[in-house]
């Protein structure tokens, strides 16, 4: 079971959208936010930008929501993907995902989501601010604990 996660540091994200361009380019051969799996939510008035990726939930609602078994979890890697040949385009998975991660390709008429680029996520490779990393879960948790500890000491 793959124990790496996409770890996002929201403070580092400047909202450039390079990850979105790369993701859509790699998967769809075209640059476009609507075709990107990773989506950066920009709140310019508030001054933040937050990349949202797939959480790869333990109880994936998208998988259950699919009535034809097109959303599957790979037994070895644990990665959840959409088999576009099986997808009937009902968009129940799009409605189901609580984070709005699951998207729909209006040209090809099927859903799509993050597939971790077969183990080497490209958004991670190309984020020049290193706002997104692909690291083991333990390391991610450790970093969070440190950040929290520092905050507590500073207060």
């Amino acid at each position, binding site marked *: 079971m793959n124990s790496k996660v996409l770890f996002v540091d929201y403070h580092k994200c400047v909202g450039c959208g390079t990850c979105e361009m790369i993701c859509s380019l790699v998967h769809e051969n075209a640059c476009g936010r609507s075709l990107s799996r990773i989506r950066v939510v920009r709140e310019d008035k508030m001054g933040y930008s937050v990349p949202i990726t797939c959480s790869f939930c333990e109880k994936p609602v998208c998988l*259950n929501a699919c009535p034809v*078994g097109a959303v599957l979890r790979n037994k070895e890697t644990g990665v959840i993907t959409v088999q576009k040949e*099986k997808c009937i385009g009902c968009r129940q998975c799009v409605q189901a995902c609580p984070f709005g991660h699951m998207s729909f390709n209006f040209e090809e008429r099927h859903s799509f989501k993050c597939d971790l680029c077969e183990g080497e996520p490209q958004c991670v490779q190309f984020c020049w601010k290193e706002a997104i990393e692909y690291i083991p879960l333990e390391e991610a948790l450790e970093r969070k604990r440190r950040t929290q500890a520092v905050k507590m000491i500073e207060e």
Partner: protein
Amino acid sequence: MRTVIIGNGVSGNKAAETIRRQKPDWEVVMISREALPAYSACALPDCLAGWVSRDDLFIKSFSDYRELSIRTEFGKEVRLIDTASCEVVLEDRKIEYDRLILASGSRALIPPLTGVMLEGNFILKSVFDLERIMAHRPKQVVIVGSGNIGVEAAEALELRGCEVTIIEMLDRVMPKVFDEKPSAIIRRLLEENGVRVLTGEKVMEVRGSGKVEGIITDAREIPCDTVIWAVGVRQNVETAREAGIDIGSLGGIKVNSRMETNIEGIYACGDCIESFSLVTRRPELSLLWPSAKRQGEIAGLNCSGKPAEYEGSFTLVVEEICGKNCVSMGSTGGMQNDIQLQVIENEDKDCYFRLLLDNGRIAGFQGIGHNEGLGAIMALIKTKTQLSEVKRVLETRELLTMVPWFAGAARYLMGGGDSYEF
């Protein structure tokens, strides 16, 4: 690039439409024995009953073929397939092909008994059969076989005022798709509707001089003027066999999951093939309209260069008998009698259902009088979802709003009671 399709049923038509959509510039030729545009053979009993007109049976008109740029060679027999020169030889010409799709379907069987050649013996497979039956003006009808066609024809003729008897060789009606208990309920419904049902009885002879006057079984003699044979079909594979195409042990053309035969460039789909079950993965003859349609689509996709895999055929039978919805889907106890399937039954007022479980997943469902949530059950069978997961979501309602279709299955999975009547 020319694709030749032998057969004008739903399988051949779906293959043709699929190729046309993928490759607008390819040549598509369809050959058929019947000089008619494609029609729904499933609706023949409905037409017999008078619920649908003969015109409405047709799913295409001749002009539809022209609009799709499909060249038609209808009313012609295929003499042989020459795989060496890639030619289909008809009675009046030869047609070269780059790709060939065999969608020759099946023909209804009549056992070789005394009296089957008498006037008054019919099958119900084509529009011509329908016309012959109607022209005969049946009054006392014996229907041999209690599958879909037999039961539907019985209801249709009973509605037209005929005296109808069904003779089934096996021990229960609709034996292929219903197990004993639901089958017994269906039998009762038929009998309440005035249809006489005889099971475990074999037809020995048709009696009469010139025309049908009666039928003799191994138990009795029944006077009648019409016999409709609904005992099964045989695949139309003789020409394929002669051409060197492999035929499976069940009698259908052997294909892989891409509908490819053993000869490159030749595909097969529909009634004429040996398919495999989506649920059990075992070889089966899936003689159903939706299977033929889907197989035609897969053959058309692979033929036109777009690889596609067939997920397997799925049995779905929906019959309205005396106003009650009788549904069978997936595997039955009879189909998998070598595997221990767990049976969950429920009989409630006028409704009945049974779930057949295999290792915590639904393998099949049979229901009488139920109209809701059946699609959810079908989705659970096809996706082979573990029921423990579904039950957990339904019991705790956790995340149910995100998977609302699970709720449809609640009444069948949660042991009845109001709390799960969604």
